[in-house]
């Protein structure tokens, strides 16, 4: 087995079994906030116990492997065809090892061949850069939270949302309200203002690569992020939609240019079982460091 494939299997194992520190810290903050004796508190206690168990047993935090999203930053010379082949083999092997559930279904026949491979699965996003370093990030995004994502076209009369940041605020909060606990909250929002229907969702997912505690360099977006986080946590939806103070753990918003005729706001919801990890790789594929 190639060194690269071994490294990618380890990346998958870590991503599937170990929640990133920033997410765990946010969950612990939520746990402290919830009132003793409530079902919200008890839900977060089970979540916290689950995080510990998954890590110690090296088993999936959540059984829903979800969509397997690789983000690769690479130098110009990297052979992307070869990398893709190794990534697919790593997914197949990680599935055999139980790090991933057999989770990929042929949309026409309904067959699940148990490999997690097929058209569009896993999804690989390559980005060339001028640096000589290769890094690979992996996000496993469960289906329950993917299903509560929403895309809005502004203006939206029903929500009184115009083509401005206040309009964005209204539709994003609407998405939180519509999701209730169904996305396995407390969740994290990745939002893209602008783009087209495809790129909007794609950009919104990239926001999940950001550290939960970072601040948006754009002061307007930073203000919007903080406002939505605070307001969402005042709605009383709570963990799993059981009621309580912890509805969201974070909000990350980016922007992409749009065409004059369109103004999309794309909202992706990430569950509390926020599986994201990344590694830098040497030329032979060996892991040289972890990114989270």
């Amino acid at each position, binding site marked *: 087995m190639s060194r690269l494939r071994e490294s990618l299997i380890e990346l998958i194992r870590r991503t599937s079994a170990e929640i990133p520190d920033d997410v765990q810290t946010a969950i612990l903050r939520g746990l402290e906030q919830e009132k003793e004796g409530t*079902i919200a508190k*008890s*839900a977060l206690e*089970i*979540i916290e*116990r*689950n995080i510990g*168990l*998954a890590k110690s*047993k090296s*088993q*999936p*935090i*959540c*059984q*829903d492997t979800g969509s397997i999203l690789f983000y690769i930053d690479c130098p110009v010379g990297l052979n992307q065809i070869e990398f893709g082949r190794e990534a697919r083999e790593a997914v197949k092997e990680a599935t055999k090892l*139980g790090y991933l*559930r*057999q*989770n990929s*279904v042929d949309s026409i026949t*309904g*067959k*699940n061949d*148990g490999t997690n491979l097929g058209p569009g699965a896993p999804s690989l996003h390559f980005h060339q850069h001028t640096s000589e370093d290769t890094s690979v990030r992996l996000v496993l995004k*469960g*289906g*329950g939270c993917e*299903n509560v994502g929403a895309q809005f076209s502004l203006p939206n009369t029903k929500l*009184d949302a115009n083509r401005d940041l206040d309009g964005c605020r*209204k539709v994003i*909060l*609407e998405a939180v*309200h519509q999701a*209730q*606990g*169904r996305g*396995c909250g407390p969740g994290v929002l990745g939002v893209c203002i602008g783009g087209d229907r495809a790129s909007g969702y794609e950009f919104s997912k990239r926001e999940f690569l950001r550290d939960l505690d970072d601040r948006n360099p754009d002061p307007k977006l930073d203000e919007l992020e903080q406002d939505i986080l605070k*307001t969402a946590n*005042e*709605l*009383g*939806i*709570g963990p*799993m*939609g*059981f*009621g309580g103070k912890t509805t969201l753990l974070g909000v990350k918003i980016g922007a992409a240019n749009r065409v004059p005729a369109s103004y999309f706001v794309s909202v992706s919801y990430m*569950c*509390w*079982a926020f599986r994201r990890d990344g590694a830098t790789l040497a030329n032979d594929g060996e892991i040289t460091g972890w990114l989270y």
Partner: protein
Amino acid sequence: MTHSLSSPISEEAIRELKVGDQVLISGTVFTGRDAVHKYLHDGGELPDGVNLDGGILYHCGPVVLKDDNGEWKVTAAGPTTSIREEPYQGDIMKQFGIRGVIGKGGMADKTLTACKEHGAVYLHAIGGAAQVLAECIIRVRNVYMLDEFGSPEAIWEFEVRDFPAVVTMDSHGESLHKDIFARSEDALAQRR
């Protein structure tokens, strides 16, 4: 208040449960999700050995592996989103005598009505808590329709012990989900 539940469950025991009650489930639980619901609703028959009368159906697609001795071992088993089964659940509940449905995210009016008429509850497990919940599964007794539906969609028969869940829809017409939706809608209206 925490209640213990184990199948077969009587209608009387179910009627005692109220929204917000925490339960610990022990005994037999069968899994069933999208493919199973559609199959049963289309007139499919339960395979021999699957008895849901007074029983508990779990919306779950577990990760199950065979160990070195050829025994099934559940490595991850949290609930899946239940609302997808809304078109089918009420009818299936009544037809097969199901008293409890475990899932996540809650269900809507059709199921709530069926819970009231038939005497059943919706039990919300903690979504994503695959390891805590897998630890509550002490044995895989059997699996049905594995070839037809694949592992996540098959009917797994589990023996569980102290599996934690919350009653979020009861047999008296109450739904925590409806309640929280309405309350959060009001809170949002004040902050728009």
